């Protein structure tokens, strides 16, 4: 007996979604659905099982994947060093002429901090602890304060080094460096729009962000200058190195990780602090790497079963054209984003969507940035807005409700979708920098 044709993909997709919804670990669900899919295709248990062993060994044996553990380590060490707080202080000085300066400083601080850490959730949590108490002390409106923290946390996924962009590049066999550089202009644009919103809202309704002198506890200008500049130097080293072609992303990550250890030493981190940072970095790295392995199993199934071609034909037969295709993908991303985290969202959809988008003639970098923006916006929507929950659990104020945070972050959601639409309409916003820098 021979196996099934490409329609096997629908059975394995159904199984995958069912397992994920029932709460099975996403990576495990991806792997098992792939095994079942390959079994149905070949009608042979050994071939089906071999996908597990061979993918486990081959899929992440790559130099470029070393960026994930290295950047995670860099982010954890810098969080632990307390440098983020100094950075916030520095940004607050830089923004002193703007209405709602503490909110604007939160955006700027998040953007700068995001440039040295790979995960949006981490920076949202960090700034919940640092920025929120300062804003409340000055009498800022609660929703306004919470919104800017949750919203600007999402900047992290656009500003390199971003784990989402790395995962995307690996899945599509694209260049990590190109996606990193592609995220820079849209990231700066989004940051600028966020800051403009903070300022305009505070200008039109001064009661939500009263002016006043900021008196940070234990603030020490020299200290904050030192580590703030340390972080900026790391950003310049990592991004500048990739940009100028001195470093591959992996090399930049290696230098960044060592540089973060240096900043940590300068900030007086002790042995136990370092150990804790290393431990935490490992804790957040392993599940992501495992998802990548499982995601490649699923990609293999899509390839061997011919499922991608089938779904591609289905999309084309809808007769919507590129705009319609993008619309359908956007809806699926947003819906899926309500039940799974962003990395899983990418792993489940991009192996299918990417070839379709390329066949429709879209620019690969712009499509990636668009996708990441949409998926990241999903982190702000109920019921599973991970950023919302991260802020809720990190904010040192038990009276804050999830609704406060949701309401405050709606404007940021709208701005993100707006910038995403700009990027897909004017792809050169994303593709110009990488094509000029990397040739």
């Amino acid at each position, binding site marked *: 007996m021979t196996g099934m044709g490409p329609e096997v993909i629908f059975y394995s997709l159904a199984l995958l979604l069912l*397992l*994920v*919804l*029932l*709460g*099975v*670990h*996403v*990576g*495990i*669900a991806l*792997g*098992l659905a792939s*095994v079942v899919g390959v079994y149905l295709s070949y009608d042979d248990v*050994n071939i089906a*099982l*071999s*996908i*597990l*062993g061979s993918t*486990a*060994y081959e899929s*992440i*044996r*790559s*130099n470029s*994947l*070393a960026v994930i*553990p*290295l950047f995670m*380590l860099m982010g954890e060490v810098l969080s632990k060093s307390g440098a983020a707080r100094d950075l916030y202080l520095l940004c607050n000085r830089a923004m002193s002429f703007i209405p709602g300066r503490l909110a604007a400083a939160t955006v700027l601080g998040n953007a700068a901090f995001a440039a040295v850490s790979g995960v949006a959730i981490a920076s949202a949590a960090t700034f919940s602890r640092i920025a929120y108490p300062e804003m409340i002390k000055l009498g800022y409106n609660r929703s306004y304060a919470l919104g800017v923290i949750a919203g600007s946390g999402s900047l992290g996924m656009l500003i390199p080094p971003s784990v989402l962009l790395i995962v995307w590049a690996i899945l599509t066999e694209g260049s990590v460096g190109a996606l990193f550089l592609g995220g820079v202009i849209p990231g700066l644009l989004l940051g600028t729009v966020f800051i403009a919103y903070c300022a305009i809202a505070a200008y039109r309704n001064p009661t939500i962000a009263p002016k006043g002198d900021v008196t940070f506890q234990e603030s020490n200008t020299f200290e904050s200058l030192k580590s703030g500049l340390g972080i900026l130097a790391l950003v310049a080293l990592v991004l500048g190195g990739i940009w100028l072609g001195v*470093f591959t992303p992996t*090399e930049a*990550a*290696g*230098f960044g*990780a*060592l540089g973060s*250890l240096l900043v940590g030493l300068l900030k007086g981190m002790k042995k136990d602090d370092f*150990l804790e940072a*290393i*431990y935490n*970095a*490992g*804790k*957040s*790295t*392993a*599940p992501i*790497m*495992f*998802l990548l*392995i499982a995601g490649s199993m699923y990609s293999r199934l899509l390839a061997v079963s011919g499922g991608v071609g089938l779904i591609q034909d289905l999309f084309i037969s809808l007769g919507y054209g590129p705009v319609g295709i993008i619309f359908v993908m956007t809806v699926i991303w947003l819906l899926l984003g309500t*039940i*799974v*985290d962003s*990395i*899983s969202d990418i792993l489940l959809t991009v192996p299918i969507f990417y070839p379709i988008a390329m066949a429709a003639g879209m620019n690969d970098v712009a499509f990636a940035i668009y996708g990441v923006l949409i998926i990241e916006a999903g982190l702000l929507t109920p*019921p*599973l807005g991970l950023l919302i929950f991260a802020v809720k659990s990190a904010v040192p104020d038990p009276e804050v409700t999830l609704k406060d945070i949701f309401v405050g972050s709606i404007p940021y959601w709208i701005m993100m979708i707006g910038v995403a639409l700009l990027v897909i309409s004017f792809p050169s916003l994303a593709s110009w920098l990488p094509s000029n820098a990397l040739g």
Partner: protein
Amino acid sequence: MSDSNAIIKLSERIHVVSASWVILLAVIIFIDVLGRYFFSTPLLGASEVIKNSVVSITFLQIPLAIYRGSMIRTTLIYDLMSPKIQAYLRTLMYVCGLLFFLGTAWSSIDPSIEAFAVSEYEGEGALRVPTYPVRFLIILTSFFATYAYFQLMVKDFIASRKS
């Protein structure tokens, strides 16, 4: 009980070793890049070491990720269920994990033995790295992960019996 604690401690130790290994990677990259730019002699075998390290670090960290519940899942539907159904769903989760890693370990055995038998190497010239250590590491850690899921399932079962 002390047995299971010893196993979890073991997974913690392995985790710390592999997490610290990342720093070693950074140092290797540092030496490699400086060597290439300033002395035009890149570090021999750096690329092979990094590649194999990525796989090893990941698999060494998986058991603790399972024990600490940091494997990514969604609890959207789970949260809406009654405690009894939640217990069934947890069992499903553990069984799926167990099957996955058992399958991974099982299907890795033949290729690993073959790699050992024919002395499969990679890299060229003076530095050739054998592939079997990483292959066997995957088998060992996958069995460890299988056991972790099994142990959690049994623990969960006993706990729900008691309550």
